[in-house]
């Protein structure tokens, strides 16, 4: 049985390819009656030999759409959404509830826009690595929400997404002593303790804190072209140190209150 080929290319111009396992699942599914196919697609146990991978469901939705089987499109789309809805929701939960709701719809829309567009190969990667592509779409939706919020409330980076207080404008003016502006290194235990309290820290202090302490980004570099927190936010190193001090202050308050 000849399957629809993928036509999308990698950055090195090689064509994307579905895995052999997915191709086999597709062939097997296409030989079933519609009722049996929907029944099989409902199997949620990944260890079952009859489990249909998400990459396979994407193909089947497109094929059903191509042949005008609207009922089948709806049934398979619903199963696919059931499989990934909670995953998307949890990832977007750090956004304010109404923003998270819009971002959720954004992810579903971006995914099905390409699955149901039969004139385009934009969704090919969903048949190759579904969960990776979904992660990309979640991150893009998160960033779009951030962008929209920034545009809606200029000079309020990230803050409005999180439902937190808006951070004071800036920061060169903060009268922070040189003692407070030292670079601190937190132990693994301290970082683990802080993690639960990160949602109590305002933006953009929180992002700067996470990048520096959890992901090892330097604040500054003698090489002006090097990637640093200062370069990323387009702020001076002094401002970034102020932000880190603010974050640490908020975390210290939280610990004292605990």
């Amino acid at each position: 049985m000849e399957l629809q080929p993928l036509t999308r290319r990698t950055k090195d111009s090689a064509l994307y390819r579905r895995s052999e396992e997915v191709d086999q699942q597709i062939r097997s599914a296409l030989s079933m009656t519609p009722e049996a196919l929907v029944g099989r697609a409902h199997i949620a146990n990944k260890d079952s030999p009859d489990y249909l991978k998400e990459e396979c469901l994407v193909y089947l939705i497109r094929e059903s759409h191509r042949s005008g089987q609207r009922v089948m499109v709806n049934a398979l789309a619903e199963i696919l959404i059931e499989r990934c809805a909670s995953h998307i929701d949890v990832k977007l939960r750090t956004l304010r509830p109404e923003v998270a709701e819009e971002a959720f719809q954004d992810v579903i829309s971006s995914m099905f826009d390409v699955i149901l567009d039969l004139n385009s190969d934009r969704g090919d990667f969903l048949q190759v690595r579904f969960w990776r592509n979904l992660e990309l779409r979640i991150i893009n939706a998160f960033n779009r929400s951030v962008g929209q919020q920034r545009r809606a409330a200029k000079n309020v980076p990230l803050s409005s997404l999180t439902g937190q207080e808006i951070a004071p404008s800036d920061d060169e003016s903060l009268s922070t002593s040189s003692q407070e502006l030292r670079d601190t290194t937190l132990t693994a235990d301290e970082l683990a303790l802080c993690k639960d309290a990160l949602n109590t820290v305002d933006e953009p202090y929180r992002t700067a804190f996470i990048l520096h302490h959890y992901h090892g980004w330097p604040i500054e570099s003698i090489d002006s072209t090097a990637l640093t927190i200062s370069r990323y936010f387009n702020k001076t190193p002094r401002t970034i140190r102020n932000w880190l001090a603010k974050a640490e202050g908020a975390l210290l308050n939280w610990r004292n209150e605990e």
Partner: protein
Amino acid sequence: MNEQTARERLLEAVLHEYMEAVPNPNYSALVEWIRRYPDFEQELSEFTVTRSLLQTLPAPPDEETTDKRALVQRGMSVVQGILARQSASATAQPQFSSLLEAGKLRGLSIHDIATRSRLSVALVRKLDRRLLHYASIPQAAIELLAQTLQQQISAITQYLQGGPSLAQGASYRSEKAPTLVEPEDFFEAVRNDRTLSDEQRHFWLSLSDSHE
């Protein structure tokens, strides 16, 4: 449907490979990827920062997660919206049965199409009759044709993926039905085309290195 520019397609491909190669956000890896793709510094940085936040921020308490049934319903209403939009636009979608016909609709001769797409007349004919192996056709050729014919890239892509056709208006004296030759590799056709200018040939062959 939104068309993607060549830059957006490349960015998407780069991000996919970045995610494959770097499963978790990592500063050193980011620096290395920015060195490889300096034009995407902002996008790679934004992407990694968001990944870092999503990975590090604490998960919401269980009671704050949304009811799954409600999420699925919300998702399905999005799907229904897309299907409805597609149905509405299907009737209004312009169709063309060949590249030459699409050109004619815009008042373009085959020579015009060739010149504007940096191709020869012979190559345009081969593309029109789908005598070139689709997988070998570079994205730049598809984009130039789409631009010249004022069509969506997806429409050109879809057309070029169809089966080969016989020359229009040709008559065949043999009693046997004419057979179609195997599709030719695009770059092979470029190499063998003596009507292409040196500049055109060089332009297309410079793309062959990155094309498998």
